[in-house]
């Protein structure tokens, strides 16, 4: 019983990390239809910015978060303006282009900073564990769970309660008609892409104390993020949250009942089955393209 309670918490923790990574992707993919294969590299950049701020400037992870967000969002903005913008009418080419951008970013980091794994110290105030009976929870993981929920909430507010969000939703529904009404869809897309990249950067910053910071760290993460987006349904924030929770908990439970390797296989098999019966994910949004 103790094991199961602890494992449920572990699943929740995995889910929060997945959600942080997938949220940016869900927005970019859902809003713009761009399959951004460089997303994992944005996560990696976020981790490296955090590392650079900590080792060279002496800023800890928590105060670094806004800086990381802005830095990676800027990179996203440049990538969007330089490459992705030119390819909105050629969705297949964006896959190739963003994949190439990912490789370029990865190699730039490797050449500029080095291939070896970097050390980032976790925040001091969040070290230690909180124990409730048999349940032992790492404070840092609790923080990540609440932080990801907060980011989800902020993003949801942004999409539904601001003028920018309204314009974005209008552009998603019908780009040509929105432009007729004076919405500058190019600008909206640029900002959305930058916001998604910034979220990926924050995700990268948050996972540095738990994972190892290397140039290739994004490659594996982006696969998980895509799984979350696909299971959740295109462009649905709630869907992404539910899918992240589902995949996190399923991974945790399978890995304690069987083991991590077979657990992973079981989760992937489950996702294939789900896609078979709900090809558009759990919460598909009705959009016209």
């Amino acid at each position, binding site marked *: 019983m*103790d*094991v199961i309670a*602890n*494992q449920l918490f*572990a699943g929740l*923790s*995995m889910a929060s*990390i997945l959600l942080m990574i997938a949220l940016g992707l869900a927005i970019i993919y859902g809003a713009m239809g761009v399959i951004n294969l460089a997303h994992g590299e944005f996560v990696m950049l976020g981790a490296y910015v955090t590392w650079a701020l900590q080792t060279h400037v002496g800023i800890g992870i928590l105060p670094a978060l806004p800086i990381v967000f802005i830095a990676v969002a800027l990179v996203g903005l440049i990538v969007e303006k330089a490459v992705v913008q030119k390819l909105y009418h050629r969705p297949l080419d964006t896959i190739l282009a963003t994949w190439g951008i990912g490789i370029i970013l990865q*190699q730039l980091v*490797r050449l500029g900073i080095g*291939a*070896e*794994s*970097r*050390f980032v*110290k*976790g925040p001091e105030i969040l*070290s*230690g*564990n909180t124990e409730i009976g048999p349940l*032992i929870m*790492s404070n*840092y*993981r609790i923080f990540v769970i609440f932080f990801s929920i907060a980011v989800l909430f902020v993003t949801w507010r942004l999409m539904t309660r601001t003028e920018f969000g309204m314009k974005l939703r209008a552009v998603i529904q019908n780009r040509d008609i929105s432009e007729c009404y004076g919405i500058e869809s190019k600008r909206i897309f640029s900002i959305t892409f930058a916001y998604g990249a910034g979220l990926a950067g924050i995700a990268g910053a948050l996972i540095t*104390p*738990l*994972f*190892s*910071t*290397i140039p*290739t*760290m994004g490659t*594996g993460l982006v696969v998980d993020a895509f799984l979350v987006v696909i299971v959740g349904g295109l462009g649905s924030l709630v869907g992404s949250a539910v899918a992240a929770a589902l995949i996190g908990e399923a991974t*945790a439970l399978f*890995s*304690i009942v069987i*083991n*991590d*390797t077979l*657990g*992973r296989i079981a989760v992937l098999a489950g996702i294939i089955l789900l896609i078979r019966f709900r090809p558009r994910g759990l919460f598909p949004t009705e959009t016209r393209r």
Partner: protein
Amino acid sequence: MKRRDFLGGMGAVGTAGMLSTPALLASSGRALAQGADIPVGLLFSLTGAVAVVESTLHDAALMAIEEINASGGIHGRQLRPIIEDPASDPATYANRARRLMIRDKCVSVFGSYTSASRQAVLPVTEQRNNLYWYPTLYEGRECSRNVMYGGAVPNQQQDDLIPWAIENFGPRFFMIGNNYVYPKEENNYCKTLLAKYGGEVVNEEYVPLGHSDFSSVINRIRAEKPDVIFATVVGDSDVAFARQYHAAELDPSQMPVVSLTRSEVEVKAIGGEAAAGHFSSAPYFMGHGTPENEKFVEAYKSRYGGDKVTHFVSEAAYFQVYQFKAALEKVDPANITPQTIRDAAVGLTLNAPQGEVLIDENLHTHLWPKIGQWKTDGQAEVLVESKERIAPRPYAAYEGQTCTGEGLVKA
């Protein structure tokens, strides 16, 4: 000029050109045999996933080559390193190894970190009857006459370690490793030792390569309360495991992680605080106090930067070049081939940074196993040092099979 004449003239020029080509080739072939340079290949990944570790092996081997050249070479001949980057892809290793052995006529190639890349090169080096110098500790169960194995095999890492761990911490072992051949073979041998010394395996678990979330493994460790965590997790998985183990506040004095794969490189990324108190078994630690090692570490740092670390694989990558040199010095300069180098290398002793190493007739290396405990400064304190040099037995876990100078012998 008539067209026919023109064509005839061109034909003559063409024939002359054709004739001159083989002559050129032949003269360059002779030049190589008599020339001042001895071509050697360096086949370490400088890009891709494995580059993290392999670039340090490349650095160490290249440093040794340049040291040898600076001190006058071998028989007055310089070593000419030919560098290839196989980009962490096994198929590319095989390709580039072939190129080094055929086109560049290397008499030896130094390379590889992972078993996958070594096994990709194996058919090439055996087919060309060349020599491949492999510096990494590995799982054993291989007995090629064309590979020089510089790293430890399971018996060299575990024979001292397992009884020591049982005596100091207890008999209940929790095995955690990545899901591929190396951890499985090491655990296989560990189980034979546990049976011999009265230990038991409470859990044996494998996670995918590159796995980064260890919360379920840590929950299982909490529930099982083993005495020793026997770890064969590699690379960034090991970094993630160690950091999360520390974050979960599991006490190294109650449940220490005893690792076969954790070196100074991983500890640097883990952070000294999280690594402190845990153990590694290896033939070499950076802090080892021999004059050879002080010289090695100092040269390495002054060349590549004061924050760089040496580790048990880069040490082997370094001393293997010196073993190659020592073997070449015994060979008749007119008859330098991979076979003569190999035959000269057998039985050769060398003062390596870890101590005096010896090349066995099975082409593995006799080494000095040590058990080190990690400190907060990222260095290991050597607690146990093997009293004698340990012979390599790559088939130790398989009764009736021995790797000898004639290859694998089955009883």
